[in-house]
């Protein structure tokens, strides 16, 4: 038993709490927040290698034996996501320095970011379904703070809707947990995976599985529950948007992936086919939005929805290629979305608007920004050898091996729409007649470009060096496909 897996949860928590003591010392706030994110990243990388070398890590809090105490479980899948989360928070903190503004920095911005990180890392690590609810509430509470942070008109207007949708989905979460508890008598995920196959009446479990799909679907923004996402995400400033776009929906996706591979597998003919159909509809709905809007933020926001559909389609096939592809694509998507939001954030700052029609001709004045954006856009669309390619390839392969081969065809076709929507920003903003731009000081521009370029470089490395990451990804997929490995690890403690 090693406590290492608690570090990525506890470090940001303690540092965020400490940061709240001196909100006005901005230099200290920045330094300590950066240090906290860095420490979390280092500990999560240690954890990843520990899990890779020694197998699944489990801590049962309070040393109660497994089904009674709260288990924290770190397998390769969750530790990979914890590493990605820590990496993204590090870059978001770096990107916040020049963009978020002193007023916000003085009002507990960095503590809120770190509390969000606590919640996300906790949700990825926990092995107890009620504890998942608690960690989701922790990250939601931080996200409520961030979405309304600054109190601008549009932020207040949209945060009401965001709050309302999430409160309703939390109440449904409690109700779903109640039903699950009454049927199985346990909340420990490993114990659920043992008990659920023993229950003969699978009808009620199917209903509960679909109820959980609705609950997590609100968070993951699947069709038709994505309606709240575009308007809400449009309101907050860019670093917060990058943080939300990269992390928040992915918690919902992770929860669906975990529950639908570990224990809701009693009636895959219905639940997983439903998941596949919803995933494809999510992709199509996202494509419509990505093409319909002339707002750079909106275009990337709708691309979040498309990616959620692609990832969930891979999971719904429940075969090796599909699940491996989903894991690869999930990690790729978290990084590339943050990078794209960073880059369009710079573009929006330069033009002083996020409306594409009022942009143009940036290639002459900001060539580095243009090329970096183009690489990121190609990565998003999955052009080989960039980072979207290996994940999408495996998902499509999984679809052709699985029962819903038509889904793979839709994914291939919509890749072109994704490419079009991302390149459209490039064409409008970087080509054409130069438009008058806002003056931007060189140091501020460099401070914004630096984290964006590094993050794009990381995604390129993730794509080109996908072979290096494959042992981790295939190990993660193995645990997802063989719940017995997960169960044994939890009950061994």
């Amino acid at each position, binding site marked *: 038993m090693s406590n290492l897996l608690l570090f990525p949860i506890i470090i940001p928590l303690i540092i965020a709490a400490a940061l709240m003591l001196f909100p006005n010392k901005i230099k200290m706030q920045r330094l300590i927040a950066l240090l906290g994110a860095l420490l979390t990243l280092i500990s999560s990388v240690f954890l990843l290698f520990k899990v890779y070398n020694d197998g699944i890590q489990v801590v049962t809090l309070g040393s109660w034996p497994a089904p009674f105490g709260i288990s924290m479980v770190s397998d390769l899948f969750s530790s990979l996501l914890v590493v990605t989360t820590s990496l993204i928070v590090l870059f978001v903190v770096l990107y916040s320095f020049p963009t978020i503004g002193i007023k916000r920095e003085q009002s507990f911005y960095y503590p809120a970011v770190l509390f969000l990180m606590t919640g996300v890392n906790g949700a990825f690590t926990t092995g107890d379904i009620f504890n998942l609810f608690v960690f989701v509430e922790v990250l939601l509470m931080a996200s409520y703070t961030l979405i309304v942070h600054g109190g601008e*008109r549009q932020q*207040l207007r949209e945060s*009401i809707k965001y709050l309302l949708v999430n*409160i309703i989905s939390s*109440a449904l979460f409690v109700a779903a947990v109640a039903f699950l508890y*009454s049927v199985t008598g346990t909340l420990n995920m490993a114990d659920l995976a043992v008990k659920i196959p023993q229950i003969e009446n699978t009808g009620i479990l199917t209903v509960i599985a679909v109820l959980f799909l609705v609950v997590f679907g609100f968070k993951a923004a699947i069709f038709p529950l994505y309606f709240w996402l575009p308007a809400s995400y449009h309101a907050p400033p860019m670093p917060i948007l990058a943080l939300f776009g990269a992390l928040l929906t992915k918690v919902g996706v992770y929860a669906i992936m975990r529950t639908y591979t570990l224990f809701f597998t009693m009636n895959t003919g219905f639940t997983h086919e439903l998941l596949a159909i919803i995933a494809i509809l999510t992709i199509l709905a996202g494509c419509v939005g990505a093409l319909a809007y002339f707002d750079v933020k909106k275009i990337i926001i709708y691309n979040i929805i498309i990616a959620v559909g692609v990832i969930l389609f891979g999971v719904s096939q429940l075969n090796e290629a599909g699940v491996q592809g989903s894991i690869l694509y999930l990690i790729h998507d978290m990084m590339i979305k943050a990078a794209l939001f960073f880059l369009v954030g710079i573009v929006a700052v330069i033009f002083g608007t996020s409306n594409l029609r009022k942009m143009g001709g940036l290639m002459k004045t900001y060539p580095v920004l243009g090329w970096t954006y183009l690489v990121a856009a190609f990565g998003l669309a999955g052009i080989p050898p960039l980072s979207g390619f290996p994940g999408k390839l495996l998902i499509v392969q999984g679809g052709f091996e699985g029962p819903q081969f038509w889904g793979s065809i839709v994914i291939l076709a919509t890749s072109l729409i994704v490419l079009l929507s991302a390149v459209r920003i490039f064409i409008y903003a970087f080509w054409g007649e130069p438009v008058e731009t806002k003056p931007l000081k060189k140091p501020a521009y460099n401070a914004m470009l630096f984290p964006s370029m590094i993050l794009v470089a990381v995604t390129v490395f993730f794509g080109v060096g996908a072979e290096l990451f494959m042992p981790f990804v295939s190990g993660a997929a193995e645990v997802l496909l063989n719940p017995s490995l997960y169960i044994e690890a939890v009950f061994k403690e």
Partner: protein
Amino acid sequence: MEIIMSVVIGFLFMAAVYLMLSKSLIRIIIGTGLLSHGAHLLLLTMGGLGGESPPVVADGVSVSDYADPLPQALILTAIVISFAVTSFFLVVAYRAYQELGTDNMELLKGTEDHE
């Protein structure tokens, strides 16, 4: 007892949905409060209402005479969370009312650009 509780929970959910469908923001917030009350009672009821049996297993107490203490621990957590979220929601609603000058959700439809 479980039947009565089920009816109460159903009524709470019904009232919550009715309130949340109204236009006034303050009614919607009261609706979310009722919704979480319904969910908490559901959690308590689904764990089984133990009646007079104690929540500890002592010598001579069979498992059938044992009240499950876990649902109470769960709803305690859930109540604290929903209390915090509701109070935060009220503050945000008040700030939004000051800033936007209305609490009518009908007027807050769509986004700012669509006006």
